[in-house]
């Protein structure tokens, strides 16, 4: 027993002598899991730098705020723009120092702390075999289609739910509460997270689910199923952008910067479409996988920048609560 411990300790020492301390990357669970883009990105980056990435998963922002100055994170990835202002307010982040020219996103990017790495439109996804009369606008969905049932995520617990509340506010303005009230009878369920809603949708319990315009790509590419489609609304679709940032107090600034530089590289970006089933922040259309070209995409992209989103948060949640209570 004793000798085993000694040997193990010896091996650890050798290990640390060869490779420097790994780069600690805080990431959401879906990102770093075996079925997310994380592992491929890790492999690609490690091949280029003879270094090591350690993912730490969980709720990125709350964890960062709990830890404050004591955080072990060098880089944080997966921060939504709607969360970014709060992350910025921690004062823990350093500028990303990456040239953001040539982004393939429908919105301008001027943030010098948080670097976008993927994005997607919020959208209602349906099954063509079960929905004939597809709403042709958000207004049409709100005013008509009394029998169309929806599953959405709670804006109080989920980023996609919050995106929908912001979307409603952006499209309906002062009438957002009324729009919620009009939708309320058809909102069969409001779930804590995306998975529950989407599971109920694929099980046939609801006709439409709050998801992303890229969701059909998964079914198309991975399952060879072209019956899932996103309803496209001319009013525009709210855009969710996920970003990364590096910590000011990282003990490996060079490695952290190297990772930040890697984010917009083609190698990283080409992993996103089929790794995260979302749209890469910087990838020429010809490098996109085939299935994505077939996706219907909105003409208009709507977004609040992170400061506006932060200021509107309580308002849009109040609209959701008031509208749903009127049911």
């Amino acid at each position, binding site marked *: 027993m004793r000798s085993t411990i000694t040997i193990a300790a010896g091996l650890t020492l050798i290990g640390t002598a060869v490779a420097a301390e790994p780069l600690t990357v805080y990431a959401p*669970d*879906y990102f*770093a*899991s*075996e*079925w*997310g883009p*994380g592992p491929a990105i890790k492999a690609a980056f490690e091949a280029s730098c003879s270094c090591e990435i*350690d*993912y*730490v*998963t*969980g*709720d990125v*922002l*709350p*964890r960062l*705020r*709990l*830890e404050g100055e*004591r955080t*072990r994170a060098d880089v944080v990835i997966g921060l939504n723009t709607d969360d970014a202002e*709060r992350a910025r307010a921690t004062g823990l982040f350093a500028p990303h120092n990456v040239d953001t020219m040539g982004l393939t996103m429908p919105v301008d990017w001027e943030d010098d702390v948080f670097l976008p790495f993927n994005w997607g439109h919020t959208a209602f996804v349906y099954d063509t075999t079960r929905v004939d009369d597809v709403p042709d606008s958000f207004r049409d969905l709100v005013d008509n289609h009394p029998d169309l*049932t929806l599953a959405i995520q*709670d804006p*109080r*617990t989920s980023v996609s739910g*919050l995106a929908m509340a912001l979307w409603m506010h952006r499209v309906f303005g002062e009438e957002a509460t009324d729009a919620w009230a009009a939708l*309320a009878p058809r*909102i*069969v*369920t*409001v*779930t*804590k997270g*995306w*998975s*529950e809603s*989407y*599971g*109920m949708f*694929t*099980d*046939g*319990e*609801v006709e439409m689910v709050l998801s992303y315009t890229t*969701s059909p790509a*998964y*079914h198309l590419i*991975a399952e060879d199923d072209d019956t899932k489609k996103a309803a496209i609304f001319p009013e525009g679709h709210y855009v969710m952008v996920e970003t990364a940032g590096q910590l000011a107090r990282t003990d490996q600034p060079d490695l952290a910067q190297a990772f930040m530089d890697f984010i917009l590289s083609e190698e990283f970006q080409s992993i996103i479409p089929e790794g995260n*089933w979302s749209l890469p922040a910087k990838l020429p259309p010809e490098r996109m996988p085939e299935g994505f070209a077939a996706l219907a995409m909105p003409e208009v992209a709507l977004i609040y920048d992170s400061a506006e989103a932060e200021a509107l948060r309580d308002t849009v949640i109040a609209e*959701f*609560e008031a509208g*749903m*209570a009127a*049911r």
Partner: protein
Amino acid sequence: MTTGTRLGHIATGAVAAALLLPLGAVAWRAEGWSGFRASDGHVLWFTLWQAMVSAALSILLAVPVARALARRRFPGRGWVVLLLGAPFILPVIVAVLGLVAVFGRTGAVNTALGWADLGPVSIYGWQGVILAHVFFNMPLATRLILQGWLAVPGERLRLAASLGFAPGDTFRLLEWPMLRGVVPGIFLVIFLICTTSFAVALALGGGPRATTVELAIYQAFRFDFDLSRAALLGAVQLCLGGAAALLSLRLTLPSGFGAGLDRAVPRWDSGGWGLRVQDSAAILLACLFLLLPMVLVLSQGALAVTGLPASVWWAAVRSLAVALTAALATTALAFVMAQAATGARGGWAEVIGTLSVAASPLVLGTGLYVLLLPVVNPVSMALPVTVFVNAVLALPFALRALIPAMRDLDRDYGRLSASLGLGGLAWVRLVALPRLRRPLGFAAGLTAALAAGDLGVIALFASPDQATLPLVLYQLMGAYRMEDAKAAALILVALSLGLFWLFERGGRHAGA
């Protein structure tokens, strides 16, 4: 005070600290101080109301099923009793999908109603919340009440038979006092479980009106990062639990049956066609209600099981390790705490032990994170912390099974043990373990099953290579792989039930 009792008081103190310190730590990390909100009144009201109704309904439905199982012997009875344990340990998301498959808009029930030209019934709303809570907790209530039934000594039933008791007399004179003894405690535990419910309440409640305190805590923590509010709401939840625990202690009456001689005694009160039909119907309906949703969801995953990657199986191994360690820890804790609860000034052990079910797992986990942060890298502690939190959270169930048994043991053989100077480890080995095998096996099995299926804390701490099976299940769903996720759920249920079965079997068969 014996060593065991002293250890029990120490353990109780440790558990109390484990519940309160994290709460304090969360409050301490708060930036600023915020109070209650206007909407909190409604949230609290909804939380209490649905928990009350869910607990009452779970128990009302459990009594006939437990009674039927207590007095019937039929092939496959063991399987029924085992499978009854399954819903309780089902991951929330799987249970929701299962319930929806049966009671949802396009589910089996509404399809059948459609054939009969009857209007659809909606699962969404308060009725769905209660349905789900009954689905989760009625089996637990059945199991615990069944324990009570089996604890009625055969000698008393024989006496009843010899006196020509009609079923009504048996109920009034034997079964009612037994129920009076066990039901308040079971009601309390289920009530408290339901107060901490959140994802189910939201998904089936159909909107923000179904907001519970735990959801408000999640929102405060995850979305507003308002730790003071999270701590405040966590404290409200604990106070609620404490008040309910004190109340139920006052209502609990000792059943006072005395000891039997461990003779296997057949039941004489099971004759008559009316009773037979009634019992069969109770068992059949319960099985349908509890098993159909599970079968509908899990069967979709059956084909995908063999195609799952190795990492899912490794996650299952980690879950197994967590489950076994938690079972050991909880059983040991509950054993000494039950000793303390049985002795003088032991009331607080029972209250503290019950309280932990009212603790918000989120506040508990976050608090532990804050506490560990200055000392170690919390990520490296993910699995130990998961074990610890699960051991604490499963304690109320273990105590529910152990305290009455320990009390009976003390009443029936306490003086004999004392007169022989039989104490300490010799008492544990020769008296307590053999006499308490059943409740200990039950407690260990339930803890293992619960811990195997727990998601709560691991999500807060883990790094990808530490993922447990429930976490993997959510990862698969998050990556659109619904079928694989259902396969993982199938493995999870098989694992949990397997553990439950093994421990319970150990409890029943070993020894004399």
